[in-house]
């Protein structure tokens, strides 16, 4: 009961910060609500930008992935992100900021429309970006439900936990806009950095130190491989390094790049970002792996038993049984289970609140969707001119309510594995849109038709992967299903974790083909006018 109360107190504080504490800065115009008046200082910019990226996916998904796959999780996502995200912020984020300042852009689609002299193609880009952002919001609601359910020891059911988190986030985004969201994100980042370290120390000391846990894992042949990367192929590892390209393309990150007061504020973010990643991911991944040695926690033992059953590959097992076992062995809640078992009650509550901090990072995505809708659709098609700026801001708020409600009801269906859902759809799709940004900012000859080709290809390939995976069930671990082959060469394969193209994750061919399409189609079609190009280059 105490942990649940601590988490609820935390939620109340977050609600207060986002909704009321920063009203004295309130600007009632659109730039004030959607971009905090382009006035965020360096520390808030860093902490908030980082907090925006720290979601349920990062905290619960990374620990869950490490629980099943081992230390490779850190190399797959964390260290590649530690390089690629700051580099893209350095080269692309600063230029986005400058263009936003110069041309008063609020969304990326406004920039694309102006840069490529197009209107409806911008609408197509908006639609694809918006649809790809929804899974990100859904995993946050799911993470909220999972966390509250685990922290309360099952007293708060999953559906209610998700509803409470969705309501809190929706409220402060609705009232606080970008400034409220940024301050909440900064507060949440500090919370998680402090309590993440506390969880690591506390669990470590409770089990008598981690060396013993590691030796236990190394002493068992089924778990020893968790401390190496032999469960993952080098091609798969390489594929994952394409995923962080998605970060700068996420609309909430691009929009966030416009909120800095000065370009100088990017410097601290670029330098400290890798350290922040290290501070959060390393404990999460390590604790996820170490959970395999926690045989005194019944819920974790149940997961290990389910995994062992699945590995035995009983040929009489039905698809429903396989899915049931996959859900039972999912490790998204292992950190919470360890905290519940090892930490004192009050501390478990504080740590649960810290995890909740990261889980609730969907606020920026919700605000970004609302911003895009009001700017790229409502305003662009004449709504602002007809009804005025006040109505424009209220439309944004209404959209916040709508998108949160829709995401909540989708989250109730609860597909297994936060990690896979996010990676397969949102991350891969945004990585494939990366050539849009590079083309717009660095290549004069890029055209709207090249942009359209990239966008349609991205949408088509994401739908294709989704259809393929919906129609061909995931095979048992260690087995593959051939989908398309030429002779002995396997082109497309259905794997237990998703889909493989020539041994690579779909994100690799998706991004490469996007790049080729941008180049070839742009070469074949007329460039924008010199008048427009002069304003960009």
């Amino acid at each position, binding site marked *: 009961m105490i942990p649940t109360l601590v988490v609820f107190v935390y939620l109340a504080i977050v609600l207060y910060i986002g909704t009321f504490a920063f009203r004295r800065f309130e600007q009632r115009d659109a730039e004030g609500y959607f971009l905090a008046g382009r006035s965020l200082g360096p520390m808030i910019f860093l902490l908030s930008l980082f907090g925006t990226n720290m979601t349920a996916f990062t905290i619960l998904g990374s620990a869950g992935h490490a629980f099943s796959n081992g*230390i*490779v999780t*850190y*190399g797959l996502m*964390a*260290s590649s992100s*530690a*390089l*690629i995200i*700051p*580099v893209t912020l*350095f080269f692309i984020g*600063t*230029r986005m900021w*400058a263009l936003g*300042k*110069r*041309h*008063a*852009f609020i969304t990326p689609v*406004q920039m694309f*429309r*102006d840069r490529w002299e*197009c*209107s409806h193609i911008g609408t197509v880009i908006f639609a694809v970006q918006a649809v790809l952002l929804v899974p990100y919001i859904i995993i946050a609601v799911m993470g909220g439900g999972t966390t509250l359910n685990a922290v309360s020891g099952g007293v708060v059911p999953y559906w209610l936990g998700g509803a409470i988190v969705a309501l809190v986030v929706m409220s402060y985004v609705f009232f606080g806009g970008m400034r409220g969201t940024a301050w909440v994100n900064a507060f949440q980042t500090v919370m998680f950095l402090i309590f993440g370290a506390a969880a690591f120390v506390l669990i470590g000391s409770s089990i008598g*130190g*981690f*060396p013993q*846990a*590691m030796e236990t894992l*190394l002493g068992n042949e089924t778990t020893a491989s968790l*401390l*190496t*990367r032999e469960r993952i192929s*080098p091609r798969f*590892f*390489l594929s994952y*390094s394409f995923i962080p390209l998605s970060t700068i393309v996420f609309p909430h990150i691009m929009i966030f790049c416009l909120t800095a007061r*000065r*370009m*100088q504020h990017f*410097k601290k973010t*670029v*330098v400290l*970002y*890798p*350290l922040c*990643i*290290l501070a959060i991911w390393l404990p999460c*991944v*390590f604790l996820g792996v170490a959970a395999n040695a926690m045989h005194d926690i019944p819920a974790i033992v149940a997961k290990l038993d389910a995994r062992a059953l699945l590995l035995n590959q009983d040929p009489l097992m039905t698809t429903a049984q396989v899915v049931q076992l996959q859900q039972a062995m999912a490790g998204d809640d292992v950190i919470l289970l360890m905290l519940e078992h090892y930490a004192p009650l009050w501390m478990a509550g504080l740590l649960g609140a810290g995890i909740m901090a990261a889980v609730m990072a969907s606020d920026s995505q919700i605000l970004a969707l609302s911003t895009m809708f009001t*700017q790229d659709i409502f*305003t*662009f*098609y*004449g709504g*602002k*001119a007809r009804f005025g700026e006040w109505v424009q801001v209220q439309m944004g708020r209404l959209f916040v309510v709508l998108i949160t409600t829709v995401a909540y009801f989708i989250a109730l269906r609860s597909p297994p594995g936060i990690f896979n859902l996010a990676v397969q759809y949102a991350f891969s799709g945004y990585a494939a849109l990366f050539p849009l940004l590079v083309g717009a900012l660095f290549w004069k000859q890029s055209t709207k038709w090249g942009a359209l080709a990239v966008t349609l290809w991205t949408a088509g390939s994401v739908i294709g992967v989704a259809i393929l995976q919906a129609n061909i069930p995931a095979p048992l671990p260690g087995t593959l299903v051939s989908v398309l082959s030429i002779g002995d060469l396997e082109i497309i394969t259905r794997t237990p974790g998703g889909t493989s193209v020539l041994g690579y994750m779909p994100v690799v061919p998706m991004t490469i083909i996007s790049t080729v399409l941008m180049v070839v189609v742009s070469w074949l079609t007329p460039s924008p006018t010199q008048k*427009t190009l002069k*304003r960009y280059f």
Partner: protein
Amino acid sequence: MIRWILVFAVVGLYILHQDTWFWETARPLIFGFLPVGLFYHATYSVSIVVLMMLLVRYAWPTHIEDQFEHNSTSRDKRGLSGSSR
């Protein structure tokens, strides 16, 4: 010249991320508990901080920044709402 060196450094670090040398070994356990593959990537993350400091110091796009430091009121609102072409 220094900018090209930094570009090569970024590419070099990306290549170093695809390490295969600790692929199948957990030992030595650094500090008694950290598998060497995980330690490598933690150290790798710290080395990126150094690279980013150099990028910020020697390759910062001052030509873009200067426009706003000296002329912060310049705004061109062309191409925004309703400017359908």
